[in-house]
């Protein structure tokens, strides 16, 4: 089989686009079914939770820095810090903790 990088890239792009655009274009009206509505309502919370944890623990050089960053991020978000602040605080936490850890 011939392998052309651009064909690979084209397949990736088309597949990804269709996954996103089909529901956007085919679902033209408001869904009335209560279970489906509730399901879609919970999807973002579940999917973001599942993607965050435990993946965050292995995202950095040390699990300790990641765990502390997670705790700081949760607290900052709990106390109403903005998206940007929570994000930057988490990064800074990792930076500082790893600096201390690897002294």
């Amino acid at each position, binding site marked *: *089989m011939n392998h052309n*990088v651009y064909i*690979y*890239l084209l*397949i*990736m*792009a088309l597949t*990804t*686009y269709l*996954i*996103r*655009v*089909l*529901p*956007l*274009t085919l*679902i*033209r009206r*408001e*869904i009335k079914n209560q*279970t489906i*509505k*509730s*399901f*879609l*309502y*919970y*999807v*973002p*919370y*579940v*999917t*973001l*939770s*599942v*993607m965050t*944890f*435990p*993946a965050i623990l292995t995202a*950095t*050089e040390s699990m300790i*820095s990641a765990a502390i*960053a997670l705790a700081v*991020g*949760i607290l*900052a*978000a709990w106390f*109403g810090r903005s*998206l940007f*602040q*929570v*994000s*930057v605080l*988490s*990064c*800074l936490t*990792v*930076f500082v903790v*790893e*600096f201390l850890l690897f002294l």
Partner: protein
Amino acid sequence: MNNKNSYWLKKGITNGIPIALGYFAVSFTLGIAAKNAGLAALQAALASITNHASAGEFAGFTVIATLGTYFEIMLMTLIINARYFLMSCSLSQKFDAKMPFFHRLFMGFFVTDEIFGLAVSVPEKLNPMYIYGMALVASPGWTIGTYLGVVFGNILPANVVSALSVGLYGMFLAIIIPPARKDKIIAGVVASSMAVSFACTYLPIVKNIASGTRIIILTVAISLIAAVLFPIKEDNIQDNMQTSSSEDGLDMKDSPINNDTIKDQEVHHES
């Protein structure tokens, strides 16, 4: 451009900045992966601007690296990016019936985790300009980051890369935690999602499920259980997620959009 549109475009650009910064860091590491898979910088950038999908692109690069079949890369992309299908279903409910159709075709390029997270948190109908505004800064951040990742691979010190790599997770937390504070059911859903996800990552047998597949299975299963146990009863769902954005300087009070929908922001559950 009318008031509403420019309001949402500006707001999208403002909120797109932290997304772009996070993307830049992540896509930089993605660029390194692309380089290792043998892609040129422009090819990697092309993948990024046409996919906007970290895990999906990463998986694609591994298939390219191993010279997998075209079917394999299609299937891999399909499975890993399937969560966008759910997000698009969810997003489709936020559109105004009068919105021109072509917007749906354009927005289809930009349903990423972060853009979706912010777009779905808008309490009223979604203005496409909000998505375009975010995409306007986030997409170049993602694409240029990938490009530079290939070119400059190992220039950033490891501790900086390490610190930047939690940036996106921080954003996720900022989206899910504030509504969880206000609503016990969401708090329970978030906590159990994390617990089950943790278990599935480390328990024998299930830990062998690829992460993309795990995300899909858990999202469908947990959301379905939550929907059956705690159906929401309000006809016009005022997504609780808006609370995260209203504390994000996105205060709706200065919005030209009607304030009436916002007052009743608590979502009621039947229990």
